[in-house]
């Protein structure tokens, strides 16, 4: 009987070209994914203060026990972590993940994850075919785009068998029908590190953090993996039964479902149905559903036009606003620009910030030929493929303003003498640590708190789908909510485990600074660190708070998480146990950030987020709020973050976490309670252990 783990982690030392195995059992207590990756990073990265492009930086690419199994919305997620290249004032040790089939092949090849250390003396790509791991010459690949790179690696692994991939030497057992799963950086990713992503297949991206540049800095172009084995789980029948049980929670579970209740429920699935192309942006030919491995949701599509395949997130919107402004409606420029960001391995979120910043700079009349920001880019043609191609090539080839942008946008603003003004008025839309403004910290407070208390734009939609998107839809489209705000608050608070509080989702002007909201943020940090980022539950599927198919509108969380995980591992982990592992991971990560220089004083938003500036969110934000003794759905759009109250909130949060409220550093007792005494020793050694 298996437990979902393959049993070994691959360690590749690019400097010495040594291939080693690390027993997974050494790290199983962390679950997998991010937790395991952080623990491996802690052990292997000798100097955690190095920059992301230093050979001493360690990158881990991790699956989880559920990778390659039938756990829905989880099987195909892969977690990546390292010290990043994107960020201000400091690129933190950070993470990202992507969907597709990489983690599946990794498990089928017999590996729970990969740890990459050192730097190769010449360009390489890592070729994993089951147990066989080799470093291949990547000299000719380094300047190639991500799609061409994958095609060449596929051909290389196929060998002489044009339709098959080579997995061994025998005539009958030496080939596979599967294409290897490849993760690669874009062309010349080392020149524009903070703006780079890693890409797998057409459109699965580790977008943020600049991990493409980290690859490149190690002289590593790609990792390819082809596996022909399987995953042994503890309770196969139990896993199948759990999957069937979970299907009962699936809104629009099949094409005939009349969707009787309106909502944006997480567990909804549409097996076989193609989602709207590019989020309904533009229909480009016939569509076919596309999903990550073992996922019934099929969020993505492929189109007969070949444009925009697998593009579902921000890259799908990159050119949309410009398309409207230029052409009055979406054109094929929008999916072609989405493809461009994937093909060049550029981070679409940073590109979207560049887009909005250039638009603002044009209004301020400071960018253009001969102006303060002197550029020959065709900024009069924003919205066209021509503009994006020119911008991308300026970044990749380091021409025009490309070298400045490639330093990072905050750094470019500093060089251009525009930082104070543009960051303060929101022209440069970077809401947390130099990451692009995503959902608004002023309204969706848990998004903002989680990001600024962490390492990046959290990009976690647990509350967003239910408490903002669903409720705002109801309000904007004139729907009578199927449940009251009071019932929504009640359901969600029931699912918060030890952080349960009746006021957990009070998004009122006072509520977002409350003790109860600090518990909400703590739950979110701990839940996602374990269940999403270490076990791999997809952010677009989990958590499931409110669900019209559940009993009395109660979603599948937390029963679903436990049933699936324990069916795979055979363990008896409780929901609360998982949250506690998440808390442990969160504290380990925080210790790494502290070693990098983190202090309470740094955990602040840019000026435009605070109420002194008055730049407000542009749309209604209807969320549950407790006002004058009643729960209501309230538009909370018209507010900024109060600086004094934000500081009070941080004190509440630090206290809840067991951190020194003066510094934000964990205390020894907190770390020892989490069996992280060795981490406390290290922080004490460098004089950064929180005062008791």
């Amino acid at each position, binding site marked *: 009987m298996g437990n979902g783990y393959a049993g070994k982690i691959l360690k590749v030392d690019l400097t010495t070209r040594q291939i080693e195995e690390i027993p997974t059992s050494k790290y199983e207590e962390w679950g997998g994914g991010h937790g395991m990756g952080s623990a491996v990073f802690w052990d292997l990265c000798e100097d955690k203060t190095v920059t992301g492009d230093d050979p001493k930086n360690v990158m881990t690419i991790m699956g989880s026990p559920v990778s390659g199994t039938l756990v829905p919305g989880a099987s195909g997620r892969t977690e990546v972590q390292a010290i990043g290249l994107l960020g201000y004032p400091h690129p933190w040790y950070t993470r990202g993940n992507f969907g597709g089939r990489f983690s599946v092949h990794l498990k089928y090849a017999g590996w729970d994850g990969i740890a990459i250390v050192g730097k190769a003396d010449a360009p390489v790509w890592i070729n994993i075919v089951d147990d066989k791991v080799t470093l291949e010459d990547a000299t000719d690949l380094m300047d190639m785009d991500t799609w061409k790179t994958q095609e060449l690696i596929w051909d290389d692994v196929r060998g002489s068998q044009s339709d098959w991939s080579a997995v061994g030497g025998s005539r009958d057992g030496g080939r596979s029908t599967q294409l290897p799963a490849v993760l690669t950086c874009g062309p010349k990713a080392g020149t524009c590190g903070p703006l780079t992503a890693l890409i797998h297949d057409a459109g699965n991206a580790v977008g943020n953090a600049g991990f493409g540049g980290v690859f490149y800095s190690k002289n590593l172009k790609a990792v390819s993996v082809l596996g022909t084995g399987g995953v042994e789980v503890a309770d196969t029948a139990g896993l199948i039964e759990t999957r069937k049980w979970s299907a009962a929670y699936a809104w629009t579970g099949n094409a005939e479902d009349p*969707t009787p209740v*309106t909502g944006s429920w997480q567990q909804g699935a549409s097996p076989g149905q193609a989602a709207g192309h590019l989020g309904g942006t533009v229909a480009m030919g016939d569509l076919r559903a596309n999903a990550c491995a073992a996922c019934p949701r099929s969020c993505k599509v492929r189109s007969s036009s070949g444009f925009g395949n697998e593009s579902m997130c921000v890259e799908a919107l990159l050119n949309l606003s410009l398309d409207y402004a230029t052409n009055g409606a979406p054109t094929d420029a929008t999916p072609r620009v989405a493809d461009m960001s994937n093909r060049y391995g550029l981070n679409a979120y940073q590109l979207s910030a560049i887009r909005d910043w250039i638009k603002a700079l044009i209004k301020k009349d400071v960018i253009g030929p001969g102006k303060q920001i002197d550029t020959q880019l065709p900024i009069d043609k924003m919205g066209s493929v021509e503009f994006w191609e020119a911008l991308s090539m300026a970044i990749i080839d380091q021409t025009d303003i490309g070298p400045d942008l490639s330093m990072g946008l905050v750094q470019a603003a500093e060089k251009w003498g525009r930082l104070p003004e543009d960051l303060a008025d929101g022209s440069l839309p970077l809401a947390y640590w130099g990451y692009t403004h995503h959902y608004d910290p002023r309204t969706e407070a848990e998004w903002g708190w989680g990001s600024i208390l962490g390492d990046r734009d959290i990009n976690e939609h647990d509350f967003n*789908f239910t408490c903002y998107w669903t409720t705002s839809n109801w309000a904007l489209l004139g729907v009578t909510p199927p449940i009251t705000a009071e019932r929504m608050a009640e359901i969600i608070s029931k699912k918060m485990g030890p952080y349960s509080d009746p006021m957990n989702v009070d998004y009122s002007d006072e509520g977002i600074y409350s003790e109860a909201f600090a518990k909400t943020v703590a739950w979110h940090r701990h839940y996602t660190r374990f269940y999403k980022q270490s076990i791999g539950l997809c952010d677009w599927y989990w958590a499931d708070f409110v669900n019209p198919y559940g009993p009395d509108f109660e979603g599948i969380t937390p029963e679903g998480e436990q049933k699936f995980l324990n069916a795979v591992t055979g363990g008896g982990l409780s929901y609360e146990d998982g949250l506690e592992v998440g808390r442990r991971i969160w504290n380990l990560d925080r210790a790494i950030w502290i070693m990098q220089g983190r202090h309470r004083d740094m955990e602040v938003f840019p000026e435009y987020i605070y109420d002194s500036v008055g730049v407000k969110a*542009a749309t209604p934000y209807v969320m549950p709020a407790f006002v004058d003794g009643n729960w209501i759905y309230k538009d909370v759009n018209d507010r900024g973050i109060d600086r004094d109250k934000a500081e009070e909130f941080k004190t509440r949060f630090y206290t809840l976490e067991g951190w020194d409220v003066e510094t934000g550093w964990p205390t020894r007792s907190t770390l020892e309670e989490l069996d992280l005494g060795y981490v406390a020793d290290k922080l004490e050694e460098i004089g950064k252990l929180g005062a008791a």
Partner: protein
Amino acid sequence: MTPLDAPTREDALRFSRVAEPQFPAVRMLASAGNVELTLGSVASIEAFLTPMTAEENLSRRMTGFINYVDFKSLEQWVRETIGDSDLADSLLAVVDRGDVFGVMLPDVKQLLTERLSQYKAALELDPGEEAPSDHV
């Protein structure tokens, strides 16, 4: 809704133009956040507005979207920037009902669609033909 008086050819040309300052709008998309954009003409705003029921929209789950504009601001923009006071008056009548966005949306869309038809008729354009937009 009472049909508006047909504009003169001269007015239709003026009302059809791409104007500055452009009008702010927001593409609300569950999967990727909200994208602010600007629209420069009545035609582009009409194309942007996408009436749908909540059921239709939410059945898309993460791919659901709302193309949002503030109708009160739209009325002011049409009056002050475009200069089509007849259309602005009709928009104001819808806004003054005090309905939520989704209830007003089909009526606003219809108003704009019909007004665009009047522009095209005045300009002697075929229904599918674009009005010239590079003139004031």
